[in-house]
């Protein structure tokens, strides 16, 4: 998947100018947010449940090497094969080789964000293995060559007319229709054929359980179940941080995951695999390959503050409550991960320099932090990345800020602790700031603050500031 994180501002602008999208978001986004709130309210003490989720994931991250080892040991004992990939290339090559060794013509794929991150689909295609995304939204996004719009609804923003046209062209839609149900049924028929004959399936992993070596997937559609049941070979891919200690921990996370994601108490299907099929079973995989992917996470892990970002369970609660996401949707973030979770993860996976806008395109409103079931403090992470940026730290692949900005804040620091200098600076800047003012209001200003003045006014910088008024006010007490 092409990385376009540097283009955030332009992409966001494009999305904002898309009237169809704005109308859609205006209706859908509040519904999504409300569903999440209603879902989490079905728990007897939602705040405690969320805090417990945070504790589970905090422990899982602190015990990560130990839990990964335990998971591997148990998965191997179950008969699964486990492959560790340092990076995207190792993961993609391994899976591609598995396919080629088995003469696989095509694979069906259940949703896997980490494989979007590694770009697996492109590598498979280049090697003559056709890839069929089978989650309806992922399927539409794949056929339209678009990145995912939302974790749960990868193509939910696509207008019905476009889906109809796509299906007429690509999947033999018989009757042109704008009915999403009929379109969905057409996709069902088309993909059913793929499920029927598939010889190798690839899935993601929502949760890996150390205690039993089990991998768990949650879904509503059934495409992951098909991908696990039908072919003789199953490949399931996880990034290193997906592990929890026990099945009980996993159950709690599933309760939080489903409610935060779609507002459901539980998705239609939760499948838990502990190894390949046993003898005598007619379906299910003969071979189960579990691929554990690092791709930059052990690096993040070294920093105790950034480490918390790895707690994320991809529930999308933060997307569902972010006022910025609610305006621009998922494409603007330019990669596999969008919304606040993408804004905290991408900078440490891709480096601060190429994600500069991502950790700045936030008002620090804290809505994300307030809904996160694993206690990630997104606003603090954004501030942390900005601080690393200012320091130009190579470990974070940061680039230093513009000299003019550095000078400004150096001056700020000088003045802020010297009241006489501060007040003098105010008196000196004031006539300049106010030079285009009219009737106590500034409507335009050239220079670094032009962005503000496009649709907003500003009061003049007070000719008598509060500082300057106080002497009088003190007397009048």
């Amino acid at each position, binding site marked *: 998947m092409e990385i376009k994180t540097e283009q955030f501002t332009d992409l966001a602008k494009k999305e904002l100018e898309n009237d169809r999208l704005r109308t859609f978001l205006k209706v859908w986004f509040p519904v999504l947010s409300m569903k999440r709130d209603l879902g989490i309210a079905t728990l007897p003490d939602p705040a405690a449940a969320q805090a417990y989720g945070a504790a589970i994931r905090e422990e899982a991250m602190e015990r990560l090497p130990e839990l990964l080892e335990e998971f591997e040991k148990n998965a191997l004992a179950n008969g699964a094969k486990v492959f560790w990939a340092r990076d995207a290339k190792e993961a993609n090559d391994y899976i591609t080789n598995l396919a080629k060794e088995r003469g696989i013509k095509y694979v069906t794929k259940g949703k896997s964000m980490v494989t979007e991150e590694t770009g697996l689909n492109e590598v498979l295609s280049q090697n003559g293995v056709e890839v069929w995304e089978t989650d309806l939204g992922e399927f539409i996004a794949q056929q339209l060559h678009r990145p995912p719009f939302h974790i749960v609804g990868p193509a939910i923003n696509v207008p019905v007319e476009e889906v109809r046209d796509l299906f007429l062209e690509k999947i033999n839609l018989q009757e042109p229709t704008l009915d999403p149900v009929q379109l969905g049924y057409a996709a069902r028929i088309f993909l059913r054929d793929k499920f*029927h004959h598939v010889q190798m399936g690839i899935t993601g992993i929502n949760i890996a359980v150390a205690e039993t070596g089990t991998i768990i997937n949650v879904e509503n559609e059934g495409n992951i*179940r098909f991908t696990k049941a039908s072919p003789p070979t199953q490949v399931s891919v996880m990034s290193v941080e997906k592990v929890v200690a026990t099945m009980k921990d996993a159950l709690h996370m599933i309760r939080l995951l489903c409610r935060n994601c779609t507002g459901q108490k539980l998705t239609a299907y939760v499948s838990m695999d502990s190894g390949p099929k046993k003898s005598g079973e007619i379906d299910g995989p003969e071979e189960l390959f579990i691929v554990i992917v690092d791709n930059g996470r052990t690096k993040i892990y070294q920093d105790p503050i950034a480490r918390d970002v790895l707690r994320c369970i991809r529930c999308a609660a933060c997307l569902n409550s972010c006022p910025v996401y609610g305006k621009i949707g998922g494409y603007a973030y330019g990669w596999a991960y969008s919304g606040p979770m993408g804004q905290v993860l991408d900078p440490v996976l891709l480096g601060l320099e190429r994600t500069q806008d991502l950790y700045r395109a936030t008002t620090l409103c804290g809505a994300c932090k307030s809904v996160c079931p694993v206690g990630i403090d997104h606003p603090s992470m954004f501030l942390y990345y900005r601080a690393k940026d200012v320091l130009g730290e190579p470990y974070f692949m940061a680039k230093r800020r513009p000299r003019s900005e550095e000078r400004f804040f150096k001056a700020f620091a000088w003045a802020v602790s010297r009241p006489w200098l501060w007040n003098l600076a105010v008196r000196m800047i004031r006539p300049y700031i106010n030079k285009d003012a009219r009737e106590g209001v500034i409507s335009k200003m050239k220079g670094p603050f032009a962005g503000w003045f496009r649709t907003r006014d500003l009061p003049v910088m007070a000719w008598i500031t509060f500082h300057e008024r106080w002497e009088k006010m003190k007397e009048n007490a």
Partner: protein
Amino acid sequence: MRKALGARRKEGKMEQSARDEILAKLRAAPKKAIHPRPYVPPLSELSMTKEELIERFMKNLVEETGIVHRVPDMQAALDKLTEIVKAEGLKKVMVSTDDVVAPLDLPAWGQRNNIKVMTHKDFSDRESFKDAVFQEAEAGITGADFAVAETGTLGLIHNKDQARLVSLAPILHIAIAPLERMVPVYEQVIEKVFGDKAGATGRSPLLPSQFLFITGPSMTGDIQGALFKGMHGPRRIIVILVG
């Protein structure tokens, strides 16, 4: 440390596997404190009576458009099944051979009722089974190992008598769930299925290759948020509660 590892890889001697490298890096990182877990009040289902649980189960499943029938015993279950199959006009079904369904002898029942009843054991291999379950079976009939009141959920252990595709490929899933298998919340299920830690490697050899929770029919909202049932899996689920 990364530099040292890279150098070792280049040397070719003592080449560290990806696994060892990843684990080593994680182990080398500075540790943080693990905070004690907060108290979480128990789910309301844990203090419900048996009847309340059944009611809760039914309410939850019906909310997901599941159809639920309650019958007193297995004979009545068979009668209900006959009624459903006739009402649906089903001619060909795929059934499990699990411990709920097997005693009903559905193949014989099928002959009596002029319905083609297949089990996965009728097929010598995966591909011929798949042809039948994908293309012929109009419904899949299974038992259930568990019923969970918390969300109107069925728990199925997949094994040699419970093929995965039976409750997935046909457009209708009919499940027969004995009420003595009803539990309040998922934990009781998980304890029974995953709890046994016996076994040579510390893992139970009895861990099912797949354990599955089913809550209602297959569903999606991926096209403009319009929700509908029967995306890839069954469009409808009918549960017969017995007891």
